[in-house]
Every structure is written in structure tokens, then in C-alpha cells.
């Protein structure tokens, strides 16, 4: 509670206080904090949810549902509401999230601040594409109602604005009508990146959701092998089992990392071949399809006290194959293993957010156990490669991006800087702006 680390537990924080905000209109920005940062559930991996030497405004208690139109599916809720709480409320009434990341523990405020995306990016765009309006509270002006239609820019600055433009009080979200909690999911193994790209573009037309896992520790001859999942919401009358009911938790931070390169290599090979031998089409519960990791609470603690780093980048189509090959090659040769190496082709739908991460191209996400300075050095080299290929790093998962890399990938950063609330700052912002 006192230290309030980020999800990746890297970078460490030394001096940081937290202040609980129980009612959204009482955040009182700038009254007694030298620098404050609105924070939801602390699910960001790196330092965009940290505020070294400052205060975190803890917004989770502001999780009230304020209005719901069961005809149109528009929900108004406070920004501390988690996606899980929205699903629990809306799914029995036939609605689901229009866009969801791989965890339902994030808050709506966090989903807006990072403009999160999901397996349906090629069809639906980012979370910010489905936000109809919100109320923004600032230290230097009266509360504002922000909509994407307004020309004043506050909406575009706040979506993907890293929480810097003010305190989001409540939000109107357009939910998606679904018939039931189930997904029709197909699994397709692929042997190389080329196969992945072919499979992915063939799938994007007919499937709302596509995502692939890639074995980043595969031997050289099968580099780029993996499994692609493609899915749609199930039609009416489909009846599946009620999904995974068990819930485990890692109660303490382990004194040593439980996941090393050898274990991951063995696990990945087993997983790939097991799936290769039995490709399936099945009716899956939404929890198993969207949120497999949410079944193990605090899984980040498996990585031990030093934590782990996550890398997620997007690469423009022309360079994607080469750079991803190179990244996988380096992972394998340097033993920088990862259970979770995820590939996805982003679509063309533009986000209203000025600093939104998703853009046309291919995204790769990896998590890497923090094994000391060699891990940091290797990741910095990855960043350079991505930067030179014209790619972008996802701030929500970043702890290492340089100023030059950030400003090149997010050319509208200076406009965000001009809209930043003078009472708000974050560790990430101090690192990449100025």
C-alpha cells in the first residue's frame, strides 16, 4: 500500500505518497500536492502510473455506475470503475465492452489515459473510439464536458493523454450488444512469420478478434512459429460451459524469479506442439478467451523482487517482418525468454487520441524477466532498432524509452505538453518530455 509499485515492479519507487479519492468531484487537484498523478488500478507495467517524489490520486473508490440506457447500450460510470465491474453489470443485460485489453482489472480512467486496444483492433479501433463523452476536472479551470465532436482539443488530448490533462470524473461509453458470454474460437498453428501474416490477413475479414502467440525461444529452424486465435462473439442460442471457475493468487512476491529461460523454452515447445497436434474450433467463455491471466491474481510476483519489463512496439508494415525476425532472433540467442510473446496486426481505424499508440502496422509484445543491467542493455538495443525502423513503443508498458524515441514516435507530444494540467506530472512524463 505504501510503496504503490507499478505492475511490472520496475522501476522501483522510493518516495511516493497516495491519497484516496472517494468521490470524483472531490479530487481537489493542486490544493496541497506539489505534483499529483491520477491513478486507477496500477496495471501499467512501467512508470506511467508512478510519480516519484509526488502524490498518486488513487481513484479506485470512484467506481459508481451512474446511468445506463438498456436500449442504446450507453453506460455512464465514474473513471475508477474497472472493466470487470462493467462486464458484471452489463453482460446480464446483453452488453459487452466494445474493446478490451488482456486484463479486465484496469479502470476506465486507465483505459482512456493509455487508449488501450484489444484483439479486435483491426475491426473496432481503440477504447477511445467508443468513448462518447467525459467530464474533466482541472486545477486551473472549471470542470469541462469533453466530446470528440468539440473542436477545442480536450478530448483528443485526454484520450491517450497518460492522465496528464486532468482528473476524469465520469465517462459515457458505448457498449457492444452481444447475445451471450461465449466466443466461437478457432486455433491455427503457424510455422513462420510469413505464414502468420498470410493467416492474419485472411482472418481479419471474417473475424472480429485475432491474436497470435509466438514462441520467442524456438530453435532457429522454427523461428516465428506460433498459434493464431481468431474468434467472433457466439450467435444467440449457443450454449457453452460457464467458463473457468477457479481463481488462484500469488500471495507474496517470491524471493527469486520462478520463471527462467530454460523453463520458458521447455514450456513454449510443449505448448506449441500440443496445440499443433490438436487444432480446434470451440465455444469458449469470454473469461478464458480474453483474460487467461486474470485467473492468477498478482502473477507479476512470479518474477521476483526485481520484477520484469514488458516491451510492446508497433512497426510499420514495410519493416515489420525484418525487425520482428531480428527481435525474436536476439531473444532466442540471448535467452531473454517470455511466456507471453504476442503478435497482432493493427487496423486502419484512427483513434481520437493525439498520442494513441496503435497505428497501422504490426505489434509485438514481450515480457522479459529483469535479470540486471544486461537485460536493460539488451532492451535498449531493441528500442534503438525499433526507433530506427520508424516504430513506436507503448508508454503503458515502458520504463526505458528515451526522450528522442518518444518524441519521434508521438509527434503531437508538445501539444499534449501544452494541455497538461500544471498540478499533474508522472515519472514517465518527466523522463520523456522537457
Amino acid at each position, binding site marked *: *500500500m*505504501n510503496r504503490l509499485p507499478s505492475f511490472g515492479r520496475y522501476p522501483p519507487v522510493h518516495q511516493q505518497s497516495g*491519497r*484516496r479519492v*472517494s*468521490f*470524483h*468531484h472531490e479530487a481537489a487537484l493542486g490544493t496541497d500536492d506539489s505534483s499529483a498523478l491520477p491513478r486507477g488500478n496500477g496495471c501499467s507495467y512501467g512508470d506511467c502510473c508512478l510519480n516519484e517524489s509526488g502524490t498518486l490520486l488513487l481513484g479506485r*473508490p470512484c467506481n*459508481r*455506475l*451512474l*446511468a*445506463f440506457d438498456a436500449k442504446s447500450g450507453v453506460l455512464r460510470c*465514474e473513471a475508477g470503475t474497472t472493466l470487470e465491474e462493467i462486464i458484471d*453489470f452489463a453482460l446480464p443485460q446483453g452488453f459487452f465492452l466494445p474493446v478490451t485489453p488482456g486484463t479486465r482489472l484496469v479502470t476506465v480512467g486507465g483505459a482512456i489515459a493509455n487508449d488501450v486496444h484489444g484483439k479486435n483492433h483491426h475491426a473496432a479501433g481503440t477504447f477511445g473510439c467508443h468513448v462518447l463523452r467525459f467530464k474533466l476536472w482541472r486545477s486551473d479551470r472549471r470542470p469541462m464536458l469533453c466530446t470528440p465532436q468539440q473542436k477545442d482539443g480536450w478530448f483528443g488530448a485526454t484520450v491517450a493523454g497518460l492522465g496528464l490533462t486532468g482528473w476524469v470524473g465520469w465517462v459515457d461509453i458505448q457498449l457492444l450488444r452481444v447475445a451471450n458470454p461465449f466466443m466461437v474460437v478457432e486455433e491455427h498453428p503457424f510455422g513462420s512469420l510469413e505464414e502468420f501474416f498470410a493467416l492474419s490477413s485472411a482472418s481479419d475479414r471474417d473475424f472480429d478478434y485475432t491474436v497470435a502467440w509466438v514462441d520467442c525461444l524456438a530453435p532457429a529452424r522454427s523461428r516465428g512459429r506460433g498459434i493464431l486465435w481468431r474468434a467472433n462473439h457466439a450467435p444467440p442460442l449457443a450454449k457453452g460451459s460457464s467458463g473457468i471457475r477457479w481463481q488462484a493468487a500469488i500471495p507474496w512476491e517470491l524471493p527469486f524469479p520462478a520463471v527462467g529461460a530454460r523453463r520458458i523454452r521447455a514450456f513454449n515447445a510443449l505448448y506449441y506442439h500440443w496445440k499443433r497436434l490438436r487444432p480446434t474450433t470451440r465455444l469458449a467463455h469470454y473469461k478464458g478467451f480474453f483474460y487467461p491471466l486474470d485467473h492468477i491474481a498478482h502473477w507479476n510476483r512470479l518474477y521476483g523482487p526485481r520484477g520484469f519489463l514488458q516491451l510492446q512496439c508497433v512497426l510499420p508494415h514495410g519493416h515489420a517482418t525484418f525487425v520482428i525476425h531480428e527481435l525474436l532472433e536476439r531473444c532466442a540467442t540471448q535467452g531473454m525468454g517470455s511466456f507471453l510473446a504476442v503478435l497482432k496486426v493493427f487496423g486502419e481505424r484512427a483513434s481520437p487520441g493525439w498520442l494513441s499508440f496503435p497505428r497501422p502496422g504490426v505489434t509485438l509484445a514481450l515480457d522479459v524477466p529483469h535479470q540486471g543491467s544486461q537485460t536493460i542493455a539488451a532492451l535498449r538495443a531493441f528500442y534503438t532498432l525499433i526507433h530506427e525502423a520508424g516504430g513506436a513503443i507503448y508508454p503503458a508498458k515502458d520504463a526505458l524509452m528515451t526522450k528522442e524515441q518518444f518524441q519521434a514516435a508521438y509527434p503531437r507530444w508538445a501539444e499534449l505538453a501544452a494541455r497538461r494540467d500544471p498540478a499533474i506530472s508522472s515519472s514517465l512524463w518527466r523522463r520523456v518530455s522537457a
Partner: protein
Amino acid sequence: MKRIVIVGATSAIAEATARILAQQDARFFLVARNKERLALVAADLALRSSHEPGTYIMDCSDWTMHQAMLDAALAHLGGLDGLILAYGDLPDQARCQSDMKALRQALETNLLSACTILQLAANHMASQGHGVLVGISSVAGDRGRQSNYVYGAAKAGLAAFLSGLRNQLQAKGVRVVTVKPGFVDSPMTKDLSKNALWAQPEQVGRAIAQAMAGRRGGVVYAPWFWRWIMLVVRAIPEPLFIRLRL
């Protein structure tokens, strides 16, 4: 369908409790001092329970309003099956030692106002022959400590009052639940530093909802382990206890 009055409805524990009861098809009459806060809590419960809660703005220190509030609740709900008394204020102990107005205000808020509301509700429930009364006391009331005895005394008084009501009303079919939370991470305790003993309001809410659904009244520690901690604290002999810095 349960018809429940919550006095102090904007407290974190009250809200957590109400969300659980909402899933059990409860209907609410919500009483609080701050209109804007109450509107947010009421909107949320309206969506979660599919019944529009009644709301009532009242400063509990004004005891002459208590009967009018109960009458309004009865008119809105058409009856009364439960009342949860959830407000409280953690006073600054040091200030209470020098400022007698602050000391009296702490006792007024945490004890006196609570007693009149509980007594009026108890009288109604006794006459109708059923109902559940829930009062939120505190582990701080189990033994006076130098760091917090004004609050502790108020909560000890409240616990004794509830104990007496329970004794009196059990023959009338009315249950009385005394809740004794330990440290809870809520607005009331925002200035204290937190450690592993701290609980979330949701944990306390679950304990309250469970006790209300049970068949008997009684004393509920929340979380449960405080029962054993306080058993030890109460067992320390006075000559030793007075030397401790608690």
C-alpha cells in the same frame, strides 16, 4: 424484499454493504449530510438494484430531526426491515485533550446521535415484531488506549447500547448486530499510515451483509481475526496495560 434505511450512506463501509444487499433485491432509504455525495451513491444503487432509493439530507447531530427522518423512510419504503447506522468520525485525539468543544463533538457524533436514532428505530421494530438493527462500533471501543480514547469511549458506549438493545429486543423478534471493524482503508482514516492489518471496506461490507442474513444478532468483528487480537488486548492486566504505549 428487504426495506433498509442506511444512515451515513456515503461512508465507504455503508456503500460496500449496500452494493451486496442490492444484489439481494433490497430497497433503500439513504440518509447522509452531503447532497452531492449522496446523489452519486444513490444513482449507483439505483442501477445495481433496479429500485430507486429514497434519499434524505440530515446532519445527525440534530437529534430533533431523527423522528422526522424515520417517518420519511417509512413513508418511502412502506415499512422497515433493517436499519444500518454507519456514520462516524475519527477525531484528533490530541485536539480533544485541549479543545473541549472538539471532545464533546466527537461524543455527540459517534455516540449520542447514534443512540437516539437506534432507540427510535428499535421502538418501531419492537412494535412491528421484526427487523434488524446494525450499529458500527469499533475495536477501538474494546479497551481505552491513550492514543485514541475519546473515539474509543464513544464506540464502547455504542457497543454497550447495542448490547442492551439486543438483550431487550430478542424476545420481540428484533435482531441487533454490533459490528466492530478493525483498521479500514476509508476516507475516515485517510491520514493514518497503513500496514498488513488494514482491511478494505468491501471486506467489512461482506461481514455485515452476512450477519444481516443470519438468524441471530450478535457481535461481528471484521475482519474476523480482530476478535482474537482484541481478546488478547482485553486480557492484559491493568497494571501492565497502563505501562504500554498503545
